């Protein structure tokens, strides 16, 4: 899938590209004019839009982009983070909104969710070892048996599956699980408890070797 990153901070655009390139084809536009030019040449699937652009109000660009590419998924990325921006942005047809600083993992997971919803390209069930994970129905099963996980346990597992083969730190995981309210650093100790529970529940059915511990860092789902 093609992603157009509209971001005037060059280093930031580079880092986003570096992270997403394994799953997406990324292009970068440093200002609104370049973005419009690029979109007129051909639409992209994802538009990652920074609202603080030098040459045009980001929300204005959002309107223009919607006209040119009605089907693109648009995610607003902004350091302004003002509530009205969020409401206006979603009203103008943005699919999601991420305030800076955001985690690249979080960005990718939002993109996955939108892709699933909007393009229905990915199959909802993912094979994880001997288990089937259904993200839409929020369940994991072994053959035909549903395994009961708590809400947080399921969130944690599906997040790790989504970012399979990447080492994920406890901090990154807790940031996703407990969100803005929590104290990710403090909560990261509790990730271990959840992982232990997940392992215990799943290993009753089959091996969970794919859920590996990385010393000093955290965990990784190897698939």
């Amino acid at each position, binding site marked *: 899938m093609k992603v157009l990153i509209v971001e005037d901070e060059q280093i930031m655009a580079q880092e986003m590209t570096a992270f997403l390139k394994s799953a997406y084809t990324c292009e970068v536009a440093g200002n609104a004019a370049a973005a419009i030019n690029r979109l007129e040449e051909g639409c992209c699937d994802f538009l990652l839009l920074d609202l603080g652009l030098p040459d045009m109000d980001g929300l204005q660009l959002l309107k223009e982009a919607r006209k040119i590419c009605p089907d693109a998924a648009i995610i607003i990325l902004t350091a302004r983070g003002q509530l009205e921006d969020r409401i206006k942005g979603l009203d103008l047809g943005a699919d999601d909104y991420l305030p800076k600083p955001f985690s690249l993992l979080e960005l990718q997971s939002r993109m996955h969710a939108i892709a699933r919803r909007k393009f229905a390209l990915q199959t909802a069930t993912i094979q994880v070892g001997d288990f089937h994970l259904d993200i839409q129905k929020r369940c994991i099963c072994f053959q035909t048996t549903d395994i009961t996980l708590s809400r947080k346990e399921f969130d944690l597992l599906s997040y790790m599956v989504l970012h399979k083969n990447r080492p994920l730190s406890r*901090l990154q995981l807790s940031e996703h699980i407990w969100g803005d309210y929590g104290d990710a650093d403090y909560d990261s100790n509790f990730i271990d408890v959840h992982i232990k529970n997940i392992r215990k529940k799943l290993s009753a059915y089959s091996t969970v070797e794919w859920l590996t511990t990385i010393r000093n860092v955290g965990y990784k789902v190897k698939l």
Partner: protein
Amino acid sequence: MQLQVKLTLFITLSKMAVAALFILLLPRLIEDIAFKYNDYYLHEQEKKVLLAIRNNGIETYLQGEDNYGSYTMLKEEYISLEPATSHYAGDTIETVKRIVEKDTLTYRVLSHQLHANGKDYMMEIGRKYTTISQYNRPLQRMALYVLGALISITIITDLVFTRYLLKPLGKIIRTRLFRSNFPFKEQGPPVNTTTADFKYLDNSLVALMNQINVAFEKEREFTSNASHELMTPVSILQHKLENFLADGNLEDEAQSKIISMMSTLNRLKKIVHSLLLISRIENEQFPRQDNVRLNTLVHQVVEELEHRTAAKNLDVKIELTATVVLRQLNQDLIFQMIYNLLNNAIKFNTTNGSIHIKEYLTRDTYHLIIQDTGIGMPAADLENIFHRFRKHSHRNNDGYGLGLSIVKTIADFHDILIKVSSTPGEGSTFTLVFNLRSQKASA
């Protein structure tokens, strides 16, 4: 006590004191005047008699007799001429008793010795004592009436005048100071007064309030701008570190260093986030339109924090009725506020401790009480716990103590009063008082 009341009391009491003094002295004064006038009258009579004797000789009175005496009809006055028995002693006036036709009466008597026809005579002109003071009582009464009327009139005029004079002061207090919450609203036109002091006071107050508003506005702008400017480099750092970690080809030591850097960055992020949140709330950037069922909300928060309560084996007791719905709040902010309070109740609790959440409803207020069995705080700390970045003696692990600042900001934003009581070693109790009246009033 209000200035107006003080002045009223002073004016009334001081006039009453003057009146009382006057009433005490009045009988003596009037008597004094009456006697002085009487003496003057006796002297006048004496002059008349002496003139008659000089012109017509003493025989006009004596008519051959040795002495002479005459009374008016009711024995009010008398005159007598008798041969003198003693030496000349000048004029005297004294109050003496005289027996007149068997009645003993008190007279005010003028005595004068005169020489006529080669003989010394003693002349007495007397006036009855009761006649002298017969007008004292009516005079006194009249004087009292006049005095009373005068004092009443002056009290009334004084009060009306001070009232008029102090009116601008009352208006300054009402419009500028009474219930004036920070940040101050746009101040109305200057208070209309000709008193220079009040003009000065009013102008100074308005100038001060505007100055504070400007300073506050600047601080708000700075916080907001600084936070935004900080977000971009923080984002870049975070992304770089994430990419580093995602690389997967790092040695163990490098990996754990990156983890530690991410943790530090997370701390920075959290501070900037909190500052931005406070600044946005103070900027009134959040709507207050949600109806919040606190019972549900508290359960959500407790569920969100379950892993922490479980780790400390805390007993969380929630005693809230399901029916209470508070209006015109911002659900997200109220969630954050209760989250922070419960988070502290857990953080500073002891293992196997408890948290008790209960409520209390009056006609105009709803109290939400969060009670913990934590380490508590000394009384000296209680005042400062809501200040930004204030370190507390026992909370050295807390680091960036912004949690309670956020609580305070959210509470102020919703007109919620926070009360804290704490005993070191026993625990703390936070009470949130929601003002139901203001909710209804703005509905």
